[in-house]
């Protein structure tokens, strides 16, 4: 059995094991105070009050009551078409973005492109694209190519290229060098080394991320519809405007089911193509 240890002796020998030093404690207290002040300030600024939250809650309650029972209304076909359109937009936009992001990812990876200036500029350009949200792109494309799903596809495509390229570049930088070295040692050229040494390592990551983006874009395609870029969003917005909450609820349930189905299918695809290790 361990004998009861001498607390005073150990506290003397290793004070840090018992409690952090005065400097650390002061810093922590200051940090906590700063955080609380910031939180309180933000709440005050946005006029948070229990009264308003409570009123909002009862407003929400009314909406929920109006939603029951969900009903498809009289425009069944239109709703299904809208959802199909949203899914198609998300798929097309993500697919095209992923295709374009693969070469961009390689060009942006430190271990592939050693010319710093070129890689640096590419990455900053991508950063710029990433700084603009999908919704802004959608508004711009609606003005440029007109209302409809084409604007939505282009918005998803433009916004996701930059994000996917960055994620791909990072995955490529984390790939193991040794495997590519094996290809080079066997007489392969630079492109062969990338094709056979690097790509097989990063392809599962790329696929997994593209599938996640597809699922997430199906959800965000709803919003794109609200600004006229195609998909189910417009129908939801219209029904909210005329307070047909039961029909809104019906569409929401369909959307949730669709996203769940996509998630399930993409999970199967991932396991099938990547194996359990991915």
């Amino acid at each position, binding site marked *: *059995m*361990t*004998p*009861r*240890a*001498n*607390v005073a*002796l*150990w*506290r003397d*020998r*290793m004070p*840090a*094991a*018992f409690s952090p030093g005065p400097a650390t404690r002061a810093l922590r207290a200051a940090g906590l105070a700063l955080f609380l002040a910031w939180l309180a300030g933000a709440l005050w600024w946005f006029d948070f009050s229990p009264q308003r939250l409570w009123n909002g809650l009862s407003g929400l309650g009314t909406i929920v009551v109006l939603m029951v029972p969900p009903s498809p209304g009289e425009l069944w076909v239109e709703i299904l078409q809208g959802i199909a359109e949203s899914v198609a937009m998300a798929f097309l936009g993500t697919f095209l973005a992923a295709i374009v992001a693969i070469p961009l990812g390689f060009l942006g990876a430190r271990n592939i492109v050693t010319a710093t200036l070129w890689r640096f500029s590419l990455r900053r350009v991508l950063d710029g694209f990433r700084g603009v949200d999908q919704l802004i792109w959608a508004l711009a494309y609606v003005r440029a190519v007109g209302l409809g799903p084409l604007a939505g596809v282009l918005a998803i495509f433009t916004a996701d290229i930059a994000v996917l390229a960055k994620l791909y570049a990072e995955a490529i930088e984390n790939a193991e060098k040794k495997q590519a070295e094996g290809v080079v040692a066997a007489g392969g050229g630079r492109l062969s080394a990338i094709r056979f040494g690097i790509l097989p390592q990063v392809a599962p990551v790329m696929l997994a991320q593209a599938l996640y983006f597809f699922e997430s874009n199906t959800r965000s395609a709803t919003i794109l519809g609200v600004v006229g870029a195609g998909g189910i969003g417009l129908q939801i917005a219209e029904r909210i405007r005329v307070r047909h909450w039961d029909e809104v609820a019906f569409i929401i349930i369909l959307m949730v089911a669709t996203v769940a189905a996509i998630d399930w299918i993409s999970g199967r695809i991932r396991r099938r193509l990547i194996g359990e290790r991915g």
Partner: protein
Amino acid sequence: MLEIEGLTRRFGAKIAVDKVSLAVPAGQMLGVIGRSGAGKSTLLRMVNRLTDPSEGRIRFDGTDVTALRGTGLRDWRMRCAMIFQQFNLVQRLDVLTNVLVGRLNRRPLVTSLLRMFTAEERAMALAALDRFDLAETALQRADTLSGGQQQRVAIARALLQEPRIILADEPIASLDPRNSRIVMDALRGVNREGITVLVNLHDLTTARDYCDRIVALNAGRIVFDGPPAALTAARIREVYGVTEEEFAEEAAAAVGAPPPRHAVPA
């Protein structure tokens, strides 16, 4: 007194441990040897109930361990500490917190989740670390330590559980000879203080040097049970059908350990 009666574990159609019966008196240092797949690990893990037996019973001082659930099971696990081949420390936590994990079962849930340990427990942890010359590393992250140091931290964690039994599953298979000796000496040391030790070993020489009693398993059954002196080279050939060198090489390869320290001439 730890009593194991007819303990059996099946994985699908395969029988890992086959009707093992064993009585281990308090304070004994028992070495379990056997080839890869002989059921050593499964046997030890069943005692801690990390693996549940298919049949049979384990009793400790009259308590039926196999029937324990919930709090009773957690209390039992606290009393029979486990040491693993790969140490199983939390790499991103500091050494001190890793050792204090041994106290979790004695603390109220909320304070333990907030990492609020008493000064006495901290001192206890430091004293346990100091015993293995590791007090200075207490505030480092566990992954900064070498394998041998990590295994000693794991023993310190086990000691903070104030266990009656220590179960060590291949504690030295991932260590070099010098660290193996330090870790085995540490286990023997705590055994001398009255803690029963059950240790799985791939190395016969180590088992003979350190244990009071050796149990040999083959295909899940006990094929030898006696003092180290009785486990002669001839006996090994008799129960395993291979020479001692072959046994040693095979066992070492199975756990990924370096080849045996010194082969005994046949």
